[in-house]
């Protein structure tokens, strides 16, 4: 399903909002990987005396309820979420695009089987697939990435198939074949330039879904387990201390909001 905000923003406005989204995401990524250099310490080191303490030189973002440095925990949590999202989206894109191309080019029975398969998978809530995989695979992060890839490939598949199916029967491709060009040329010059920009928005949207899912599961206590720093888990841990240390709770909230806003802007007004 592709719904693009048309007419509302000019082409320039859309490009600008996309660029702004990319800048937001890049800022968060930079922060996540630079956090260990910005301040010393590790995300697990407890200092109970400083529990919920205000920022100081050693911990510029303050301390959590166990006296752990918030900047380190936030950085580690963002790295985890971003890595899971990256691997899930990359795997989903590779599978989805390949199968989508295959379905569009071959057609026939293979196409029908793949469509039925993807439509059936679509009927199951993504959360459920991720949860079941997480219960089976011992490594949670791996399980999340695999489960999310299992959910996200469908959109890549549908999009690639729909785009390429029309293109492959178009006069342009027919003309190229008559002129003696092969399949690789058709892919490079006709299919890829049309599919690639769609992949970018789908990837941004998929990454947002992945980050949201991991945090949601952490928040309802079936995701990453303590003491792993994870955004949803951090929020649920810090919630009881809302009155004493509102800033500590707001940090992961703000971080996830920024990253999701950035990704959604990059996805350019897509709804689904």
């Amino acid at each position, binding site marked *: 399903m592709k719904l693009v905000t048309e007419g509302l923003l000019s082409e320039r406005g859309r490009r600008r909002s996309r660029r702004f989204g990319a800048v937001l995401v890049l800022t968060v990524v930079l922060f996540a990987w630079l956090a260990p250099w910005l301040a010393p310490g590790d995300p697990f080191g407890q200092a109970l005396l400083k529990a919920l303490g205000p920022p100081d030189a050693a911990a510029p973002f303050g301390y959590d309820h166990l006296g752990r440095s918030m900047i380190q925990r936030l950085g580690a949590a963002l790295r985890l979420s971003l890595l899971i999202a990256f691997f899930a989206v990359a795997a989903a894109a590779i599978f989805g695009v390949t199968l989508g191309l295959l379905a569009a080019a071959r057609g026939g029975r293979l196409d029908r089987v793949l469509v039925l398969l993807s439509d059936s998978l679509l009927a199951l809530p993504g959360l459920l697939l991720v949860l079941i995989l997480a219960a089976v695979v011992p490594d949670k992060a791996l399980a999340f990435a695999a489960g999310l890839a299992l959910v996200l490939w469908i959109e890549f598949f549908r999009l690639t198939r729909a785009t390429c199916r029309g293109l492959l029967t*178009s*006069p*342009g491709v*027919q*003309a*190229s*074949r*008559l*002129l*003696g*060009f092969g399949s690789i*040329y058709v892919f490079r*010059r*006709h299919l890829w*330039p*049309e599919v690639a920009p769609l992949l970018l928005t789908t990837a941004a949207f998929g990454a947002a879904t992945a980050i949201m899912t991991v945090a949601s599961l952490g928040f309802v206590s079936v995701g990453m387990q303590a003491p792993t720093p994870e955004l949803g888990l951090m929020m649920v841990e810090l919630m009881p201390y809302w009155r004493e240390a509102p800033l500590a709770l707001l940090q992961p909230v703000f971080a996830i909001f920024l990253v999701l806003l950035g990704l959604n802007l990059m996805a350019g007004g897509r709804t689904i």
Partner: protein
Amino acid sequence: MTATLIATDIGVYDQRGERLLEPVSLQLEPGRPLVVLGETGSGKSLLSQALIGTLPAGLAASGRVCLGGSHLDAAQPADYRRLWGREVAVLPQEPWLSLDPLMRAQQQVAESHRLVRGLAPRAAISVAGEELEALGLAGALRRYPHQLSGGMAQRVAFAAARAGGARILIADEPTKGLDAARRDEVAALLMREVAAGGSLMVVTHDLALARLLGGEVLVVRRGALVERGDSRAIFEAPRNAYTRRLLAADPRCWQRTPPVPAGGPTVLQARDLGVSRGGRVLVEGLSLRLGAGEILGISGPSGCGKSSLGDALLGLHPPHAGTVVRSVARPQAYQKVFQDPPSAFARTLALGQAIADLVRRQRLDGSRVEPLMQRLRLRPELLARRPGEVSGGELQRLALLRAMLLDPVFLFADEPTSRLDPLTQQEVIGLLRELAGEGCAVMIVSHDPELIARTAHRCIVLDGAGAATVPAPQPRPDSAGAALLR
């Protein structure tokens, strides 16, 4: 006679205030059609849109319009709204897309009677039914638009447009994409309105339609009026040079293609060919032989299998019976030119790159490109652009260039000019003739019988049910089957 619409100094401007249409004044009179004739981008549609307040957002009009007792300022399009349907009826360009897909034909006409003219619901339904029956649509009252043919949709839209009681009918390109028979139908429909005392204004690039309608003609070019006058006078003795060229571009004024010298080598031969698409048999038992330099015309109603036949001869679409022999071993010697030029190129690829790719792939002599460009009157700067940034005529010539680089012996031209203006059409067909003169066999599909008659050496008419017939019975000695004519 009293004018029903008097427009004075109607001009159109874009957002930056640049003038797109020089001020034009005109009058509509009952019983006398007014035809605005011009090519794509000439500003002829802007004129009709400015007259009735339907200019696209961002464009502004100037001038005064006196219509049905109201004096209107063309700069205030909102004032026109209350006249729509009541004073002015607008016949839509694409009737099939202009009818609500979820509403039955009769309802779409009846709602104008009820809501615009103010008839009681039951009376509106019965009047709508009578009108549609009078238009020969008795069986289509309860059909939805997708169950109507293009011509039927045109008539439903006609009834719906004027059900509100308007006596001024404005039609913008009413024959777009229609074949000759349906074009005549539309002309008859419009003339009925004129005969009944209505006023009619038609905007078109279709010379045949303009000729059929008669009345007054305004010729527009590049946003300015170049000539106006009585239709017969203009068609018989155009004063303006552009008008002369435009009228001469009508296929009925063309010279016939000189006959092809006999004895040329056979480039393509089909025996007992059967072609079907989607399980429907379109052509059955067709045999033909095409010699070098020959132009074969294919005509028939839309959907009769003209394109499928050509694709089958090219090997793009497998025939269900018979054989096709392409005598020249080099597969790239068999080429095709498409109906919609922009769709025949990769959308995001610069045209120069597409040509360069071809030169590299087929190891061609790249220095041949430039002289060919000159011959086809293509400016070099076009090569830096993408297909969407080039006009249809230029793009079609580029498609020809692409094919010509491969020294084709057979070219299938599938409605190559149906989306082009008359002058561009004449130019492209002229190039096809030149190509044939150099020994390439050309098979041309068109819905315009005049064009086929003057371009092709012989013609196959398909009826879409398997039969392929030839208009003049005089089979060539070398042809197998009666489907071929000289």
